[in-house]
């Protein structure tokens, strides 16, 4: 392979190096995505139709989306708040320096620990026969379900379980952003007469907002697409969009293949928007980290 090849001959050989990758991406990423989009607009007769998308208006499906959105919203919001509080405690709160590294390492592990084992862990802890549930009952006579209405196998339980990987993901992403809050900004604000509250309101939070919003979007998308944990907690009965799709794939529970496509399309649209938001906001924060 010489450098001195003419540009006419260079084109094909150059592309050989990346051909396998693009072939793989085409066959196993792009094509499936496109086929779903196409399938969503294809009627039983093969022609173009909006019927499938219109069919999404059924109460079951709308409810599934709505529950998914609720669960994703709350697990993302709580994940952001708790994760932020913990990261701020470690970076800004004056905790001993040696806590930081184990926290970040553990967050790296915990953010990858999702799916069925996570569900099992939560069942073992706050499920009906779980460690905490039993302990509350025997020590304090509190029946968790009766007292708080908390049921692990409902959306509330799902939100709580998701926090296990949402919070560490937030910690991992927001810690560098908090590090980026330079000490001089706080001091400059202080010497100009600002109270700590004013500094946070006028300087620090505005700087952090893109990171916070972006991570929120990421956590939302993360939670929206998750199947395994939910499946293990409540089985196919829990009506959230991914599980509905799961059942649809297993055996056409919706009664129409086209509807399955539309359902998947809806999921792509929602997670697509959330992730695009995250990426856009991430590029904006990088502008300020000069």
């Amino acid at each position, binding site marked *: 392979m010489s450098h001195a090849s003419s540009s006419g001959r260079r084109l094909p050989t150059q592309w050989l190096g990346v051909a396998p990758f693009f072939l793989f991406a085409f066959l196993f990423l792009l094509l499936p995505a496109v086929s779903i989009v196409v399938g969503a607009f294809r009627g039983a007769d093969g022609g173009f139709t909006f019927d499938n998308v219109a069919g999404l208006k059924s109460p079951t499906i709308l409810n599934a989306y709505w529950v998914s959105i609720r669960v994703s919203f709350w697990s993302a919001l709580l994940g952001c708040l708790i994760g932020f509080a913990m990261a701020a405690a470690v970076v800004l709160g004056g905790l001993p320096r040696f806590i930081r590294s184990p926290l970040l390492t553990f967050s790296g592990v915990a953010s990858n620990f999702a799916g069925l084992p996570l569900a099992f862990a939560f069942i073992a802890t706050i499920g009906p026969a779980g460690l905490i549930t039993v302990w509350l009952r025997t020590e304090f006579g509190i029946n968790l379900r009766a007292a708080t209405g908390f049921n692990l196998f409902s959306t509330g339980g799902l939100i709580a379980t998701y926090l296990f990987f949402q919070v560490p993901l937030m910690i991992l992403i927001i810690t560098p952003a908090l590090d980026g809050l330079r000490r001089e900004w706080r001091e400059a604000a202080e010497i*100009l007469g600002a*109270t700590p509250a004013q500094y946070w309101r*006028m300087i620090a939070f505005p700087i952090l907002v893109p990171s916070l919003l972006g991570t929120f979007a990421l956590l939302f998308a993360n939670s929206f697409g998750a199947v395994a944990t939910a499946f293990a907690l409540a089985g196919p009965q829990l009506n959230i969009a991914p599980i509905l799709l799961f059942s649809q794939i297993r055996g056409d529970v919706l009664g129409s293949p086209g509807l399955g496509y539309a359902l998947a399309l809806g999921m792509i649209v929602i997670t697509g928007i959330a992730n695009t938001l995250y990426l856009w906001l991430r590029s904006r924060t990088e502008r300020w980290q000069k």
Partner: protein
Amino acid sequence: MVEPFLKIEHVQKTFGATTVVQDFNLDVGAGEFISFLGPSGCGKTTVLRMVAGFEEPSAGSIVIAGKDVTRLKPNQRKIGMVFQAYALFPNLTVAQNIGFGLKVAGMARADSDKRVAEMLDLIKLPQFGDRYPYQLSGGQQQRVALARAIAPKPKLLLLDEPLSALDAKVRVSLRDEIRAIQKELGITTVFVTHDQEEALSISDRIVVMYGGKAEQVGTPFEIYNRPATKFVANFVGTLNVLEGTVTDASAGTVRVGAGEVSLKGKLNGSKVGDTLSLALRPEAISLGRSAGREATLGGEISEVSFLGSVIRVRVGLGREAVSLDTFNNPASPPPTVGEKAEISFSPDDVLVLH
């Protein structure tokens, strides 16, 4: 006796087992421009930060305009500060940065806009109000930082190595600008730097610091020409140091290399056989004999650098050597290497370092 505007009395700072600042005392007059000069780690920034309120003195007090501020928080002291890293708020425009102190103090919008416009004119960036810090060069950012610090009309202005992060050229022009603005506004200013040329060129007085202590306080002229300690002599300006041995204590003669010089009255009780360090500024030495410079030593020219208006000559005196500058004279060519030469200086100009 006018009460000093800023009084730093017996201030000390200890971190754990290390004493970073020892018994620092200084009186600064109103409108004065005073520099803290010293190498890194000498404590100059720590003293500045204690005046600002970011560090609390372990002992001592700080009084500004008659008010003891030692226990006050930084946001209560009405001081302006410029940081080495500019520290402009990245999410605010230039105008919003400058107006920050005014907004925090609750000034009306119309008034603060007017003041911000004034400041932009003062730093000669009138069209930059809507730009963001990341769109500005280093020098521009530092000027905005200066405007931000003085917009709220503080009683005292502190500058923490504000020019160290800038290019050499910008550094020189900006330091003159800072001094001009300071003179115009008459604001008492403390300027921290490790660059002695900076300190010498713009200060009313300089505090040379080393190891947490103030080695000398004086005008640039005093610091340069009458250094009180060996450190000050070495740190400020270039110094030629010759090793000499006392041959006659009462007559004050010292043998340097192969020659002898008479330093009557400067020996301070040294005995015969003692070794001394004799320090001379380059401009105190003449090539050849010169009126008023009685002490002479013979040597050989080892280096000649023709720099245009100035010719830098290095003369070897046995094991020692001195650098001196002589002006270019179109009528006579520069000296040649290897030439025998004499240097002369006045004993009064010699600094004896023990």
